[in-house]
């Protein structure tokens, strides 16, 4: 199993447990960044605030998560997942991790809000 896949599986375990502090401590580098089309977050403190405060306020409770595409090397993870959330409904998460020393150094998210993204049927039928 690649290092990337190990990190991804651990990430899913932390998310399922709701253990944001543990996830940040063990999974991310000190100088990590989350890069999205809406914002860039630098460092564990900023990521922690987003994951514990901003994201739950926006999406509400995450009720389901289905990974539909996944691949990994020793320093990269890419995945597409369908997420069911309390406030946003169903949306497609398109994320990647770039790892340094087996931790997430760049968390890259190409996820769009459901209203801005192409519809789910489009993902399933075309590209």
């Amino acid at each position, binding site marked *: 199993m690649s290092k990337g896949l190990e990190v991804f599986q651990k990430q899913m375990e932390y998310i399922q447990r709701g253990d944001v502090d543990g996830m940040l401590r063990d999974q991310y580098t000190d100088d990590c960044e989350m*890069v*999205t089309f809406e914002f860039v977050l630098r460092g564990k403190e900023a990521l922690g605030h987003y994951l514990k405060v901003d994201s739950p306020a926006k999406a509400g409770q995450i009720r389901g998560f289905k990974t539909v*595409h996944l691949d*990994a*090397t020793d320093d*990269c993870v*890419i995945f597409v997942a369908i997420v*069911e959330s309390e406030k946003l409904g169903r949306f497609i998460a398109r994320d990647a991790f770039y790892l340094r020393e087996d931790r997430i150094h760049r968390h890259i998210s190409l996820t769009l809000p459901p209203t801005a993204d192409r519809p789910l049927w489009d993902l399933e*039928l075309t*590209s």
Partner: protein
Amino acid sequence: MGWGRDFYLEQLGFMANNDIDGLLRQHYHEDAVMVTFDGIRRGHAELRTYFEGRLTSLGTINYLATQYFAETEDTIIFKSVVRSGTNAAEREIHADNALVIKDGKIWRHIALTILPMYEDQGLYEQWGVIWQD
């Protein structure tokens, strides 16, 4: 927009001109890795094979729109729509990409693009549900 936009536009220019030599020499580390859902390519030789095949299969590009773009000091992310082929058989691809830059060149090219061939292999069912409340 800063250096990343210029780098991205230059990348498109190399591809539009079918200049794979220039693209690899100027934009990719010799040991760069491209990570996609249809394969991993390591180094210039594998990237060259990929780009040659990709540009050939795309054929004539009729339309390219960059819908979303963002950059940091070492990362570029973008979403674009590409339409190619003849009117009778025009194809549309949604390209979702990230470039991790090191020393001014692409170190990791990450593509979250889902190709139609993968949609046909039932991977949605294969990966299954990690959890569902």
